[in-house]
C-alpha cells in the first residue's frame, strides 16, 4: 500500500496534506472540544437542577442532619457525608496495608514466573462489577460477618463505642470491608508502578551499606516511593467514595449518624441510588442532585490531589510529535 495515489483536485489536496492536515486537525479538535462541551452540559444541567435546593438551604445543606421529605421540607446531607467518610475510612484502613503488601510482593519479592499470573489475578478483582460484589456481600460475606467476625470483634473490642450495638452483618462495617476489597486493585497497581519507578541505585546503595532485604525495601524503596504510594491511596479513596451498588446492598440504608460500625448507615451514592426516583417534591429532587454535585466535588478534589502526588511517578511515554 503506497501512501501516494493518483488523485485530482480536492482529492489530491487532501491526500497531499495541504487540505487533509488542517481538516483532520480541525476535526479532531472539534471532537475534543465537543467532549469538553459535554462536561459543560453536565455541569450546567446539574447546577441548574440543584439551584433550587442550593438557594433554599445554602451551607446548611452540608451541616444539616435531617432529610425530611414531608413539610416542613428540610434536607441535610450530613448523615450521607458521614456514612461516605466512615465506609471510605474503613476501606482504606483494611485496603491500604494489603495493597501495599501486594505491591511490594509483586515488585520486589515475587519470583518472575509468579509475577505475571499473579498480576493478572489481582487485576481480576477490578473486573468484577460492583453489583456482583453486592450479591456476594448479601449472601456470603454478610452471614459470615454476622455469625463469626462481628461477634469476635465485639468480644475483644466491645468496650469501644464503635463496636457496640447489635451486629447483624448488614452494616457500615461490612460495607467498608467490601469497599476495601474493591479498591485493592487500584491501590496495589498504582503503588506497584511507584515502587517500580524507584531507581535501582537506591536499592543498590542500601544493600551496599549492609541493609537486609526488608530494610532495603523499607528505607530505600518505600521512602522514595512515598509520594506515589500516597497518591495511589488517594486514588483508591476516590474510587471508594463513588462506589454505589455494593454499598447500597450491604449498608442497611439508615439515614442516621451513629457511632457504632455495627449500625446501619447510608452513603451519598447509596442514598441517591435508593431515593432518586422517589422524590415527589421538586425541592427534594433538587436536593438529591445537589447531593450528587457534592459527591462529584468530593471525588474531584480527591482525584486532583492524587494526581498532584502522582504527577512525577506516572508521567511516561516517549513519543510526542
Amino acid at each position, binding site marked *: 500500500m503506497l*501512501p501516494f495515489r493518483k488523485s485530482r483536485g480536492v482529492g489530491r489536496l487532501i*491526500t*497531499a*496534506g495541504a487540505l*487533509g*492536515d488542517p481538516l*483532520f*486537525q480541525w476535526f*479532531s479538535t472539534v471532537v*475534543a472540544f465537543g*467532549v469538553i462541551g459535554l*462536561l459543560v452540559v*453536565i455541569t450546567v*444541567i446539574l447546577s441548574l437542577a440543584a439551584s433550587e435546593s442550593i438557594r433554599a438551604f445554602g451551607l446548611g445543606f452540608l451541616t444539616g442532619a435531617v432529610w425530611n421529605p414531608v413539610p416542613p421540607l428540610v434536607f441535610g446531607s450530613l448523615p450521607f457525608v458521614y456514612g461516605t467518610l466512615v465506609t471510605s475510612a474503613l476501606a482504606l484502613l483494611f485496603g491500604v*496495608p494489603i*495493597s*501495599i*503488601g*501486594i505491591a*511490594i*510482593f509483586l515488585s520486589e*519479592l515475587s519470583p518472575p514466573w509468579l509475577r505475571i499470573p499473579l498480576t*493478572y489475578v*489481582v*487485576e481480576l*478483582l477490578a*473486573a*468484577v*462489577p460492583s*453489583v*456482583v460484589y*453486592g*450479591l*456476594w456481600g*448479601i*449472601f456470603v460475606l454478610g452471614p459470615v460477618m454476622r455469625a463469626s467476625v462481628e461477634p469476635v470483634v465485639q468480644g475483644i473490642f466491645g468496650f469501644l463505642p464503635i463496636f457496640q450495638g447489635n451486629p447483624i452483618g448488614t452494616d457500615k462495617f461490612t460495607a467498608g470491608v467490601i469497599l476495601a*476489597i474493591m479498591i485493592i486493585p487500584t491501590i496495589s497497581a498504582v503503588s506497584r508502578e511507584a515502587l517500580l519507578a524507584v531507581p535501582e541505585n537506591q536499592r543498590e546503595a542500601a544493600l551496599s551499606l549492609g541493609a537486609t*532485604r526488608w530494610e532495603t*525495601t523499607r528505607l530505600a524503596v518505600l521512602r522514595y516511593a512515598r509520594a506515589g504510594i500516597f497518591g495511589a491511596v488517594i486514588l483508591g479513596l476516590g474510587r471508594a*467514595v*463513588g462506589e*454505589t*451498588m455494593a454499598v447500597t446492598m450491604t449498608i442497611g440504608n439508615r439515614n442516621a449518624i451513629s457511632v457504632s460500625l455495627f449500625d446501619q448507615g447510608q452513603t451519598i*451514592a447509596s442514598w*441517591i*441510588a435508593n431515593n*432518586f*426516583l422517589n422524590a415527589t417534591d421538586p425541592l427534594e429532587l433538587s436536593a*438529591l442532585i445537589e447531593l*450528587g454535585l457534592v*459527591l*462529584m466535588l468530593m*471525588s*474531584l478534589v480527591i*482525584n486532583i490531589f492524587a494526581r498532584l502526588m502522582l504527577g512525577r511517578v506516572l508521567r511516561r*511515554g*516517549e*513519543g*510526542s*510529535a
Partner: protein
Amino acid sequence: MNLGAFFCVVIALIPLGSLLFEATVRGIRSISPGFFALTTANGGIGNAIQGTLILIGLTAAIALPVGILTGIYLAEYGKNRVGAAIRFFVDVMTQIPSIVVGIFAFSLLLELGAIGIVSSRLVFSTTTGVIALSTIMIPFVARTSEEALRLVPISTRESALALGIPRYRAILRVVLPSASSAVITGALLGIARVGGETAPLLMTCLGSGYWFEGLDQPCESLPHTIYVFALGPDSALNQAAWGASLILVLMMLGIAIASRVVIRLRAGTR
C-alpha cells in the same frame, strides 16, 4: 517480611476466590437453555443479556470513535496549554461517579421533555441509558487512547514524516496502527467497565420484563437484573442472580482475556 507480603496477596485473593467459587457453584444450577431463552419476567435472563449487548454495542459505536479521536487530538495536537486544559477536563470527566452520570442523563432528558423538544416518556429509555454510558466511556477511552499513542516512539513519527507523507496520514496509517494493541485494550476495558455498570441504568433504562422493545422504551440489562433478583425473597430468583452474575463475570473475564491476547499477538509479532 516476605511472608507478610505474600500473606497480603493471599488475603486479597480469598474474597476473589470465594466470589468466583460461589458464582460458579450457585450460578451453574441456573444455567440451562431456558435460562437464556426466557425473559426476566419468567425467571430467565435472555432479555437482560440482549439489553446489555445492545447497550454496550450502541455505547461503543458512539464512544469509541469520539474517544479515540479525542485521544488522537490530545496526543498529537495537544502539546500546548489548550491541550493541557482539555486533558485536565477529560480527566475530570473520568472521575465523575457513575451515579452522578445517571442523574445527569435523567435530568437532561427530563429538561428536554419539559421544554418540549422530546417526549417526557423518553426519560426511561434505552437512549437515555446509552447517553449515560457514553458519558462514562468517552473520557475513559480518550485517556487510554492518548496514553497508547504517547507510547509510540518519536522515531516512528519522524520517519513517516521524513518520507513526505502528510501528518494526518502519518497519524492514521502509521502511529495509530503501532499503538493499536494498547488502543484496542483501552477500548475493550472501557466496554467491560460500561457493561458492568448498574447505578446509571437505575434511573435511565429502568427495566423491562420483555425482549428489547425499541430505543424509546425501557430495557433490561444484566447488572440491573442481578440487582433486582438479588434483593427479592424468591430463592429461585436469588439463584438466577448468581447465574446472571456468572454470565456477566465470564463476559468481563472474556474481555479482559481478549485484551491480553491482543497485546500478546501484537508483542509476539514485533
